[in-house]
C-alpha cells in the first residue's frame, strides 16, 4: 500500500512538472467552437508535439492567472477558433494537369482558405485507380501545407465498367472511392461497388448525373437557358440518379455519399431517405447555395459548373437542407481550370470553378450572417461531419487529437480578388464580391501554415 501511494505522489509531481513545462503553441482568448463536444466558449488551447494538450475554458470575469507558458502564442481575442476545416471534395489536377494546379499549390490554396485537410478526387490523368496512383499522391502530399487524403476511383480508368482493386486502394490509404466527374452509369456496377465497399466500411461518393439526360447541356435547363438558347441540363438528370442511389443504398446496405447536391428534388429525396433510416449522406457546394442560373446571363464561363447553377427555388431548398441536417457537409468541388481553357465560347469551356479560398467567406456571408446556420452548425459541416463520413480523426478540438485548427475573424470583411489566389487557377465567378469572415491562422499538426 505504502509503495503504491508513493508511486502516485511521484506521478502527480511529474504531471505538475509537465504542466509548468513550456508548450509549443498557445492560442489564447479565442472563442473556441467544437461542434462535436458542443464547446462554444472563450478558452485557451495549448499545443505540444502537434497535439492538442490542454483546453482551458475561461469565464468572462476570470483574470488571466494561468502561469502556463508557450514558445509561441496567438492572441485570438475577438476571434473564433474552430477545428481545422476539412474539404472532402477537391480536384488537385496532379498528375496530368500541373499547369492548372498541383498538390502543393492546391494545399497552399487550402490553408489560405482555412482548410487543414482536403480530399482529392481521382479524375486526374491518369486517374487514381490503383495503389501506385495513391502512392504518388501520398508522396507529393509530404510537401503539402495541409493534409491530403486520397479518394480512389470506383472503376478502372473511371470507365464505369470494372471495379478497381478496392482492397489495394484501401491499404494504400484511400478514404473513399468515387468516379467523380462522371457518374457510375451502370447500376449493376454501382451495386457491386457498394456491396464490395461494405467490407471496408468505405463510402462511395456518387456524382449523380444521368448522362442520357444531361448530354450536350451547358447550364441548368430553365427560363435562362431558354432565353439564352443554350442546351440545358435538367434537374431530373441529377434527381433520377439520386433516387437510384438511394434504392441501391437501401438494398445493399452500402454507404452512399452524394456529391454536390444542387436541386430541390435531390434534397427532398435525401431527406425522405434519411427519414426512412437509409444510410446516405451528402454535401453541397458554396456556389450552389449562393448563385443561381441568372449568373450565366453574363456568359462568364466561370459560372459554368457541373452540376449547373440552378434556380432560386433550388438555392432555398439547399439552404433548408443545410439547416435541417439533410445536407451533412459543405465541400467546394474546387475545380481549377486554366485561363486559356476558360476564355473561350461558353459551349466549349470546361465545367468547374475554384472554391477553396472563397468557401469560408461564402459560408459566413450567406449562411451564418443570414442566420440560416449557427456557427456550430456551419463549422460541423466543414469539420466533424466530413470527418465522420470519411472515418477521419480530424475535425475535432479534443485532448490528444491532432492540433489542426483554424482561427477566424468573424467580423472582418474582404473583397475577392482571384489574381491574389494561391491556387494556380483563377476561375472564380466571385471576383469583386465582398465577403465576411477572414482566416487569420491555419494550423496543421501544431504548426502555423498560414497567417494573415
Amino acid at each position, binding site marked *: 500500500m505504502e509503495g503504491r501511494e508513493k508511486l502516485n505522489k511521484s506521478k502527480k509531481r511529474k504531471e505538475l512538472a509537465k504542466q509548468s513545462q513550456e508548450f509549443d503553441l498557445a492560442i489564447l482568448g479565442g472563442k473556441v467552437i467544437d461542434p462535436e463536444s458542443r464547446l462554444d466558449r472563450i478558452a485557451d488551447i495549448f499545443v505540444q508535439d502537434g497535439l492538442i494538450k490542454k483546453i482551458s475554458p475561461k469565464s468572462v470575469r476570470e483574470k488571466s492567472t494561468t502561469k502556463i507558458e508557450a514558445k509561441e502564442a496567438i492572441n485570438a481575442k475577438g476571434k473564433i477558433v474552430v477545428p481545422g476545416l476539412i474539404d472532402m471534395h477537391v480536384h488537385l489536377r496532379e498528375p496530368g494537369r500541373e499547369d492548372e494546379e498541383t498538390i502543393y499549390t492546391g494545399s497552399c490554396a487550402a490553408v489560405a482558405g482555412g482548410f487543414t485537410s482536403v480530399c482529392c478526387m481521382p479524375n486526374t490523368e491518369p486517374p487514381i485507380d490503383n495503389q501506385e496512383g495513391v502512392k504518388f499522391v501520398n508522396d507529393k502530399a509530404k510537401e503539402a501545407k495541409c493534409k491530403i487524403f486520397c479518394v480512389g476511383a470506383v472503376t478502372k480508368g473511371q470507365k464505369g465498367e470494372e471495379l478497381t482493386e478496392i482492397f489495394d486502394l484501401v491499404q494504400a490509404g484511400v478514404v473513399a472511392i468515387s468516379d467523380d466527374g462522371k457518374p457510375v452509369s451502370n447500376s449493376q456496377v454501382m451495386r457491386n461497388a457498394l456491396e464490395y465497399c461494405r467490407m471496408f466500411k468505405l463510402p462511395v461518393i456518387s456524382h449523380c448525373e444521368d448522362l442520357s439526360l444531361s448530354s450536350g447541356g451547358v447550364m441548368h435547363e430553365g*427560363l435562362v437557358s431558354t432565353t*439564352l*438558347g*443554350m442546351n440545358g441540363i435538367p434537374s431530373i438528370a441529377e434527381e433520377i440518379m439520386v433516387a437510384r442511389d438511394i434504392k441501391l443504398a437501401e438494398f445493399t446496405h452500402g454507404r452512399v455519399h452524394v456529391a454536390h447536391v444542387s436541386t430541390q428534388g435531390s434534397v427532398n429525396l435525401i431527406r425522405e431517405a434519411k427519414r426512412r433510416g437509409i444510410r446516405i449522406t451528402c454535401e453541397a457546394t458554396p456556389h450552389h447555395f449562393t448563385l443561381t442560373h441568372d449568373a450565366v446571363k453574363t456568359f462568364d464561363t466561370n459560372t459554368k459548373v457541373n452540376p449547373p447553377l440552378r434556380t432560386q427555388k433550388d438555392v432555398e431548398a439547399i439552404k433548408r437542407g443545410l439547416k435541417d441536417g439533410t445536407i451533412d457537409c459543405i465541400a467546394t468541388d474546387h475545380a481549377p481550370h486554366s485561363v486559356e481553357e476558360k476564355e473561350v*465560347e*461558353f*459551349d466549349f469551356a470546361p465545367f468547374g470553378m475554384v472554391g477553396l479560398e472563397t468557401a469560408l467567406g461564402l459560408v459566413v456571408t450567406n449562411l451564418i450572417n443570414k442566420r440560416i446556420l449557427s456557427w456550430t452548425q456551419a463549422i460541423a459541416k466543414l469539420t466533424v461531419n466530413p470527418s465522420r463520413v470519411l472515418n477521419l480523426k480530424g475535425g475535432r478540438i479534443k485532448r490528444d487529437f491532432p492540433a489542426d485548427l483554424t482561427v477566424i475573424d468573424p467580423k472582418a470583411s474582404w473583397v475577392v480578388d482571384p489574381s491574389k489566389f494561391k491556387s494556380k487557377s483563377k476561375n472564380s465567378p466571385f471576383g469583386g464580391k465582398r465577403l465576411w469572415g477572414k482566416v487569420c491562422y491555419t494550423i496543421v499538426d501544431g504548426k502555423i501554415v498560414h497567417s494573415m
Partner: protein
Amino acid sequence: MKLRSKHLLGLEVMTKEEINLILDTAESFKEILERPIRIVPTLRGVTVVNLFYEPSTRTRISFELAERRLSAEVISFSANTSSVKKGETLKDTVQNIEAMKIDMVVVRHQCSGVPYFLTQCLDASIINAGDGAHEHPTQALLDLFTIREKHKKIKGLKVVIVGDVKYSRVARSDIWGFSAMGAKVAVCGPTTLMPYEIEKMGIEVYDDVDEALEGADVVNVLRIQLERQEGGLLPSLREYTNKFGINIERLKKLNENFTIMHPGPINRGVEITPEVADGPYSVILNQVTNGVAVRMAVLYLLSGGEGKVE
C-alpha cells in the same frame, strides 16, 4: 436620338424607342435603295469585318451589300477558310483581326454568347448576325420592318411563330421584338421542340397549330431541320408536316389581310407548302429586300449616326 449601345447583341435589351429609330432610319435607306445610284458615302473610311463561323448565304450577302452601299471597307472571313482549323482560339483570331484596325465586326457563330464575348475582348462595335439559338436581332428587325410596312402598325397584331422554337434564334429575337412593339406573340410547335419554361417569357404556347392560327395576323414559319429527326426529337419530318405544316387549308383560320413570313431557307413541302410560300400574302422576298435597308440602318446608327439620313 441615338442608340444607347455601340453594339447590337440582341433585342432583349432594346427599347421600343430604339427599335422605332432603327425602323425609321431603315425607311430612309429603303428609299435610297430604290434610286438609280444606290450607294451613299455614309461609312466611307469605316472598316467592317464579317466574321462568319457558320455557313450563311442570305444574312452574309445582305450584310455585305449593306456595308458596300454605305461605302464601308469590307473584309469577309469564314471559319472554314481560316486558321480556325489550325486550332486558333476565337479570342486570338479576333484580336489578330482587330490588330489590323477595324471598326465594326458582324459575327455569326454556332455558340450563344459569342457576340457578347467579343465585346469583352475588342474595342470595335459588335453586331450579332446570329449566335447559337440565342438571338438574331437583324432578322427580327427586318421582320418588324416588313410587318410595319404592310400593316402600317405592329401594336395589337397577333403574331404566331410556328416550328422549331427550341433551336431558333429568330424565334427568340422575334419574341422580344414583337413583344416590345406591342404585338401579341404566340409560339406553336411540337412539344419536344419547345424550350423549357418558354411560357415564362410572357407569350402564349400552343401544340395545336389550328388553335394557334385562330385570329392571327402574322405567321412566321420557321425552318425545320433534318437534324431534329436524327436527334430523336421528331419521329419523322412527314409527321411534322401533317401536324404543323402550313398549307392553304390552315390559312382559313387567319384574320383577313394576313401575312406569311419565313426567315429562309425554305424547305418547300415540309414546314410550308409551295402554294403558301408563293401566295400573295407571302412577304418572304420582301423580307430579303428589306434586310439590306435594315442592316444599313443598324450599321449607320451603331457607327454614331443620329436618326435622319440625308
